[in-house]
């Protein structure tokens, strides 16, 4: 072999052959235009980010198309590839049941230190399905939004300074929910370089809640 040409990896550890194969040639890469459901999990700051979009047949609830993009390591890219392959053609109810363990088994196992990176990809599928259900009035049991619901959602928004979510890093100072309005206080300067990114991420996670009409996000002045 000559240096510079792509060859079969001779590395046995730490990745399985399947992971390497999908890392080299991932399936279902892209972003679907006008998707029925979409999700963005992780952030550049946490080291991994996945964007997943899907199309659903509204009559049969079958996932007809699904694509992902990844800013991440090998296990993240491979997991994105395998879960899109697993979900394609399934109904959303079936796809919801896909677990990280199943994805990991399909991949022939993943190094334990890489769990986080691959869980992120599985979460993006669950979030995209949730997004679809909420946008298409498919949520059967409508839970009224309260502070706890908002807090759960915000655990999927990353703090760009640390790469850990905004709830665990205490970036969220206060949450108020009343009469269809959510008010969130963020412990970040208004003119901070990441303020608008955090605002967009928060809005994206909250706006699909069925009983919320208005989102007010206050930064430090």
């Amino acid at each position, binding site marked *: 072999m000559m*240096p*510079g*040409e*792509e060859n079969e*990896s001779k590395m046995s550890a730490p990745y399985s052959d399947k992971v390497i194969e999908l890392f080299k040639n991932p399936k279902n890469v892209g972003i679907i235009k006008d998707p029925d459901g979409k999700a963005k999990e992780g952030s550049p700051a946490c*080291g991994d980010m996945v964007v997943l979009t899907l199309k659903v047949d509204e009559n049969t609830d079958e996932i007809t198309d699904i694509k992902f993009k990844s800013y*991440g*390591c090998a296990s993240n890219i491979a997991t994105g590839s395998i879960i899109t392959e697993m979900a394609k053609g399934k109904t959303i109810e079936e796809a919801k049941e896909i677990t990280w363990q199943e994805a990991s088994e399909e991949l022939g196992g993943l190094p334990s*230190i890489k769990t986080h990176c691959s869980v992120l990809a599985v979460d993006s599928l669950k979030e995209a399905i949730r997004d679809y259900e909420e946008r298409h009035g498919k949520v059967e049991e409508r839970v009224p939004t309260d502070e706890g619901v908002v807090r759960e959602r915000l655990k999927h928004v990353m703090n760009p300074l640390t790469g850990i979510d905004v709830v665990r890093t205490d970036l969220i100072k206060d949450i108020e929910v009343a009469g269809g309005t959510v008010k969130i206080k963020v412990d970040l300067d208004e003119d901070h370089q990441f303020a608008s990114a955090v605002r967009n991420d928060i809005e994206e996670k909250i706006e699909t809640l069925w009983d919320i009409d208005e989102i007010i996000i206050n930064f430090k002045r």
Partner: protein
Amino acid sequence: MKENLVYLDNSASTRMDERVLEAMKPYFFDTYAVATSEFAYTMGIEAKEGLEAAREIISSTLKASSEELIFTSGSTESSNLALKGVSRGNEDEGNHIIVSKIEDFPILNTAKALERKGFEVTYLEVDEEGFVNLEHLKDSIDDETLIVSVQHANQEIGTVQEIEAIADICKDENVLFHTDATHSFTRIPLDVKDIPVDLVTLSGHTIHGPRGIGGLFVREGTSIEKQMDGGFQEKNLRAGVENIPGAVGFAKAVELVNSEENERLKKMRNDLIENLLEEVSHVTLNGSRKERTPQNANLTFHYVEGESITLHLDMRGIAVSTGSACFSRSLEASHVITGIGGDHERAHGSVRFTFGRYNDQEDVNVTVKAVSEVVENLREISPLGGEE
């Protein structure tokens, strides 16, 4: 192996030079006595002579007296001994230590360990190229300060500190100054006659010498306490049977480095940096353009993650390393890139290329082409950048 591999991770470790092995061999098979047997039998005298000749070669490179150099098992031990030996040995004089925030782990984690035992530690700020803030240094030194440790050159981004200015400040303030020269020794001159540095950490395996051997320069009269009990070897500062083959190999490795080689490394790394900045979009050079070690290039390729780059390059027979969190056992992003004010994204996409004796210009060409293609492919998968 050479035909199949472009090895650009020479700051992690290097391929040992065959001439080093040849120099070491007699001390495994012919002159294998311990140096402390010099008063008992002839082979002991010869062993001792071999050890002292090696000490002379290495210490003279620093313009030090051979009395001022001890051998250790490597730079980790040297830095532990310097920082712990001075701090613990002078506890009644003070309890404050100063290190830069971008030190390599032997200093950084030794400082943290001392901090847990009650010492106060100041972590010096650095600017966006990695240079220690001299004002912060001056302001940090107080009556309690025992020692300042600032590396000569950085392990990841290659920044070469203004070592003379730092040493002068420490001398004026009457505190000891240690520098970790693991990544600069023989590559960048260091003259301890000119520069008032008190302790210097040295390593053998980063310059095509053997692993398991390092050195510590200890200026005459420096107050330091031994950290490992046992025999009285190495000026009673480092117990244990001397690694004479290692010391001899280390000395040979030092002799084999010359300024032509350093110029050659510098040219390869300059070509790599210039070509990558030209060929690939959205690239940031980490560290200083001018004041960097001849072997080091470090660039961030935005919108892609470093481990993915290194893995693809490995499939193409190119070995490099990255500051990405995904690459580290701790899943923490490089403290050097974040230390110079880079965000996590900049650390995640950072790739370190370090050259050595066995690289040539063809390696540069192959690497530039491979990196351009790999980064482009990964950007097609990435949700960042592009039109979005």
